[in-house]
């Protein structure tokens, strides 16, 4: 039952997102017709307006678009490969090329962030308000306060341009499954690191706070009394119950990461969804903007749904409570 409710919520949310997306892009100043016709004159404007249904009422346009969307037809780009109103390349093919890069970038960045944040948080929680804890707090706030558009070019300048440790912008990224796994990771490291920096600070602070509280619980005292090592207590007993806030924020962070990906992909010229979105906005390629927005929104909703479900796995109390209810 709960899953049915969630599914209905998902559908309603997605529908609202599509409506808002369509509405907002429609409200943008100017007309996509100009982009399509590129000054080819009134005849082209009239032709394209009629052909693409741009002269129809908003609701009709939206329903037509939704109908195509539900049948898997994301439409055709207004600009890429298009000329004088002729259809451009299918948006699905643009997205198919772009999404693996953004997905890898985000996953890699989050793995990187967790690999750094979790040990730091555990160590800081073990000795709260001591030198390391205070130092890590200060560093966290410092990294949080530096925006991505500053961090990205700075890292490029230091690690790519000056020391040539990592490839620079526009580096060609081999597929993760092309047998060049290490090359892929090497190329993706810097962009992922830029995204990870902000996450590290957030995750470290949240996990540290929760873990400090957990370490004061009775079952931790019991574990200590039983003579378990500190490492075992931290990893086997304290970590799992301390991760609820971390998981919730990680889910919410996805939206911020996608925003960050727009900047990172622009700086590094990674041909992911962020860069595609940037191009589409610049060229007023409305169908592509709408398609990307919907995909990102659905991904965001699904990820948060999955995280909700993970609570059941992590905490037996929630599992039991739901079973009882």
């Amino acid at each position, binding site marked *: 039952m709960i899953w049915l409710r969630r599914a209905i919520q998902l559908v309603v949310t997605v529908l609202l997102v599509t409506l808002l997306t369509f509405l907002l892009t429609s409200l943008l100043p100017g007309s996509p017709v100009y982009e399509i016709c590129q000054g080819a004159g009134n005849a082209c404007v009239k032709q394209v307006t009629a052909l693409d249904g741009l002269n129809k009422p908003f609701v009709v346009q939206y329903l037509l678009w939704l109908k195509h969307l539900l049948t898997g037809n994301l439409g055709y780009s207004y600009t890429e490969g298009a000329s004088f109103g002729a259809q451009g390349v299918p948006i699905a093919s643009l997205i198919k090329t772009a999404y693996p890069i953004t997905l890898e970038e985000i996953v890699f960045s989050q793995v990187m962030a967790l690999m750094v944040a979790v040990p730091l948080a555990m160590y800081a929680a073990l000795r709260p308000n001591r030198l390391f804890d205070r130092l890590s707090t200060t560093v966290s706030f410092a990294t949080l306060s530096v925006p991505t558009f500053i961090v990205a070019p700075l890292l490029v300048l230091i690690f790519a341009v000056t020391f040539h440790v990592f490839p620079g912008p526009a580096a060609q990224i081999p597929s993760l499954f092309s047998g060049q796994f290490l090359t892929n990771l090497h190329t993706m490291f810097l962009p992922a690191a830029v995204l990870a920096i902000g996450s590290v600070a957030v995750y470290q602070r949240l996990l540290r706070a929760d873990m400090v509280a957990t370490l004061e619980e009775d079952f931790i005292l019991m574990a200590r009394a039983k003579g378990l090592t500190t490492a075992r207590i931290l990893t086997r007993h304290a970590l799992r119950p301390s991760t609820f806030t971390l998981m919730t924020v990680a889910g919410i962070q996805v939206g911020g990461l996608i925003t960050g990906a727009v900047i990172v992909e622009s700086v590094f*010229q990674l041909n992911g969804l962020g860069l595609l979105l940037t191009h589409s906005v610049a060229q007023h390629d409305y169908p592509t903007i709408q398609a990307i927005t919907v995909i990102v929104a659905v991904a965001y909703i699904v990820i948060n749904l999955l995280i909700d479900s993970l609570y059941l796995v992590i905490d037996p109390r929630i599992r039991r409570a739901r079973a009882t209810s």
Partner: protein
Amino acid sequence: MPRSYDRRTFIANGLKTTAGAAALGGTGALLDACGGSSKGGGGTTTTPPTTYNVKKHLKTGWGSGTPVRGGTLTIGTEADESGFDPSEVAFDSTGVMYARTIYDPLAITLADGTIEPYLAESITPNADYTSWEITLRPNVLFHDGTACDGAALLLNMKTYLASPLVNFTLTYVDSISQTGPLSVTINMKNPWVSFNAWLAGYIGGQIAYVFAPNASHKKTLNLHPVGTGPFVFESWQPNVKFTATANPHYWRKDSAGRQLPYVDSITFLPIPDVASRFSALQTGEIDLMHTDDDPTILQIRSLTSGYAYVEDDVITVGQPDMDFLMINTAATPLNDIRLRRAMAYAFNQPNYRQVICEHVAGPTDGLFPPGNEYYNPAGTGYPTYNPAKAKALVQAWMHDNGGQPPVVPYGVTQTPESERAAATASTYFTAVGFKVQPSTVQQAQLIGDAVLGFFHVLGWRQFANVDPDLNYVFWAKTAAVSHTGGFVTNFARFQDNVVQSELDKARQTADHATRVAAYQAVEQRICQDLPYIFTDRDVWNVCANTKTQNWNHPTDPQGHVGLGMLSGIIWPTEIWKTT
């Protein structure tokens, strides 16, 4: 021009109108004072062409040693194209390089500005230039294995004549017919002496590029181009990458009989963010890049080793890009010459060059800068900065128009650079009594406004080409009235009988002195009528690592030196990479 227009800006009608909106950047005057210089790699082989400023150029980008075969050449461009069909997509700087990769132009511009056949074996006018016969080279095949012959060329020309993108530039053309197995004859309504310049394939001259009829019939040309060029199309991901591989059957060999092209493949990476493009060059992700962004040009100039660069302000043939404010001379209140003159007097070009253009190029007072073959040493008559005169003219206008200040809407593209430039320029006009209303609009909207006349003042960039005749459609009186479809190409809508007759005279005469005089007369009329407030000359820079050789040394099939980089455009055919 990233700071004003990216490439897909202009387009359409204007072919060449890569016109960048935005009054940005710029600079001006004496090329010797502010122009670019060259340094770094590139060896020497022969005497440099006389049209280059030798002190600055030093034959940068000329190959050194024996050409090396193999490797991949990667070029970073300011933007991507929206396709490859020359009859449907207006090529800007990037597009022309794409075209030179896949197709061959019928002609080539040499370093001294003369036009020589390229894919064509001969391009021959009749005695009075009312008929041009183009004869193709024998045994040239398209990439799909079909023959590049007279029938193919006829289809090409008929396609261009039917294309709304191109046909308005061919108003002199009366008829086209195939006159031999490899020949097509184009009959003109009037003499057209400079027609061959349109066949050299620069911005606006898209009719130069010969595509395979099969691809055109199948309507696949825009996404999968087929030509006779040095490289064969392999793949294109819009805004991501365009890759082509060496054409093993290419018809050209170098002067030593070596098969061209030298590199195995070529990849173009559109990198709109100029800082990222420059970083990519420095990290070796790309071998060569172009830019007209002034701060980046200054950074490139400061490179000490490992790179070579050229700037096109040393090229004196044809016509350079100019940045200017374009005025709608048909709209109130700027249809009053007093106000246009007041704007010209009010524009503080020295200050603008310092604040906005960072002195990358020199000042400008007309269409043809000093050193250009059409430059008028007697002066253009363009007003120099004089705010007192500007104020007086505005006051006079206000006296005749109810005492209210003239209101001037001023549109630029939505970029920080454009807005900054517009804000700076607005202060000049406000100071003398104008009420300026800056606004930003989407790029395509800006073009649409220019085409349809829905503007008063627009930031703009335009005019680079190998022959001023390619700008005929932007200045002619006949182009200031509506074409089919409701648009005009003389965007400023100035209708000057003298300009029209001088443009026709220049187009119809074979006498160079007469041509020069005609274009100087056009320039003077424009500087009197003031449809444009010149802000600076636009300078393009192409920079490559020193492993990349011979990128600024194109030759024609007879070995004559071709025109080097212009408007960020180079030839990929004869480039090689050292290990």
